[in-house]
């Protein structure tokens, strides 16, 4: 794992990508820092952080687009997969490499509230809580980016897909709010979701019995639940979306609340996507 970690970091800094990422990141944050804190003379660094959380949508694809796709294209995955390293090691090494770059940027940003200390009182708690949330949010996006990159051989395709998916996560709350809260719609929505899950399962496992069985059980229990208590489905879509929404959780950090549930939520997202990436790598062997 350490070898892959070192190699990834090295590639980021022999090609320009690492420097470009850091430079753009600092530039955008600097811009917002100036507008939100310096010009308006506000000491709340969280204003800046809340404003720039969209930065990941723009910049994370830059970092993650090649991370797996390029291995697939250059056939270097053949070296990794025929060496005594596990798929989990490969993914972890890569994740920690990109996360390190994010850490470097965050370490630099951490000094900004200290700069403001020269001019008066700074609310450190909410500043650093929001920075913490910022880091976790970034980690979640990186993990998603790694997963999406592992699906393709082309950097460009990886970048575009990653960008589109990230874009949706930004507007997920808004989209969810506009969906009807009617319980019937919710039932249909979850039914379709169940079918999609079964279909993906079938693609990955090629096992008809398992996916159809799961589909019947899933939809059966959904209908049963609906018959028993339709009110359970009221506004369920919105609930699901806002629970899943990575950006909505970020608001707690922004307000200076360090909720363990939120931290665990982000770490689980990271874990889930890294796990999915290892599955994609392992699956290649069985195609």
């Amino acid at each position, binding site marked *: 794992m350490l070898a*892959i970690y070192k190699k990834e970091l090295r590639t980021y800094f022999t090609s320009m990508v690492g420097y470009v990422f850091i430079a753009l990141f600092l530039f955008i944050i600097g811009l917002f820092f100036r507008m939100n804190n310096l010009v308006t003379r506000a000491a709340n660094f969280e204003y800046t952080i809340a404003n720039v959380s969209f930065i990941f949508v723009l910049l994370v694809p830059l970092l993650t687009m090649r991370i797996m796709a390029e291995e697939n294209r*250059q*056939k270097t995955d053949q070296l990794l*997969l*025929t060496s*005594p390293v596990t798929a989990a090691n490969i993914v972890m090494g890569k994740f920690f490499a990109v996360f390190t770059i994010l850490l470097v940027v965050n370490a630099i940003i951490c000094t900004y509230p200290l700069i403001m200390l020269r001019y008066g009182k700074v609310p450190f708690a909410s500043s650093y809580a929001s920075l913490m949330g910022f880091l976790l949010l970034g980690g979640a996006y990186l993990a998603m980016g790694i997963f999406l990159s592992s699906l393709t051989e082309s950097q460009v395709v990886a970048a575009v897909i990653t960008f589109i998916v990230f874009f949706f996560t930004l507007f997920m709350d808004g989209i969810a709010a506009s969906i009807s809260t009617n319980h019937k719609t919710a039932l249909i929505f979850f039914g379709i979701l169940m079918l999609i899950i079964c279909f993906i399962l079938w693609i990955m496992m090629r096992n008809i019995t398992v996916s159809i069985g799961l589909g019947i059980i899933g939809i059966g229990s959904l209908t049963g639940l609906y018959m028993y208590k339709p009110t359970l489905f009221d506004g369920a879509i919105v609930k699901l979306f806002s629970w899943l929404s990575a950006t909505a959780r970020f608001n707690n950090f922004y307000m200076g609340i360090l909720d363990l549930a939120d931290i665990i939520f982000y770490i689980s997202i990271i874990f889930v996507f890294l796990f999915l990436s290892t599955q994609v790598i392992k699956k290649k062997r*069985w195609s």
Partner: protein
Amino acid sequence: MIEVKNLVKRYGNHTAVDDLSFTVGKGQILGFLGPNGAGKSTTMNIITGYISATEGTVIVNGLDVFEEPEEVKKMIGYLPEFPPLYPDLTVLEYLDFVADIKKVKRSAKRQMVDDIMEATKISDVKNRLIRHLSKGYKQRVGLAQAIMGYPELIILDEPTVGLDPKQIKEIRELIRELSKEHTIILSSHIMQEVNAVCDSILIIDKGRLILQDKPENLGKHFSSTVGVKLVVKGDKDTIISELRKIDSITKLEETRALEEGTVGLTVYSNEDKDIREDLFFSLSGIRTPILEMQSISMSLEDIFLKVTQEEESVNETSTSSEEEVITDVSDL
């Protein structure tokens, strides 16, 4: 050392490897020979654990590749068809990385990387980015990667592609050197290469094993016809009519004669029958001097072509494959 049993790999309806079985002993060099798309790379990918097999087993040193992939991977060094190189690393950085993922001990690493760079003759480019290297150098870096950690089994998929003749010679010597302590499987569609280095040759076509034998024994399988090339001075018709009298000649072919007043001929006879003396006496009887006589022994190329084409013609029509093959061989 390696035991491959009833290996099958299917992609949908396409069968890439079809019931392949063979064994390789310790310290042997096995040559994998077959036309493009014969299933050489697929078989190698399965042995190294890169892809799975549909059916069958691969046992390396008593360990099943499908059950204990991690353990088996420790024993294998692999140079795939396209050398797996990172263009953004220098040669040294790359080999360092490979040594790390192959779990080479820290204390031995420096020396091993140096030795391997020396052996594959890439020390002079060690600080250059891989993306700037020529094809030949890239191939050699790939080879260096495969022997990193000195695994017991080294698998090389067309190791000399893109190298110049001098480098090819060096790489062959290196392979022979390595075979003293390692078992090697290499694939190629170049016959001389396999002939030059391998202890055992395995010809496959369309995923099926056609034969496995020592290079020197291969000829025995296909010595049904032996030919002699002749250049004779004299009138064509009289020479041919005279030669028709020899019973053991099965086939006569006219080839281009370079000199004025001479006839070029290729004569084929039954096996185990040396017709050179007969030819000499028969032609000297009608006073047409033989200027040149050269016997055609089947080269590996001929065997290879013959074997793979026989397969084809067996599939099409089961008869008269012999004739076609012979004309093709003489075209070479």
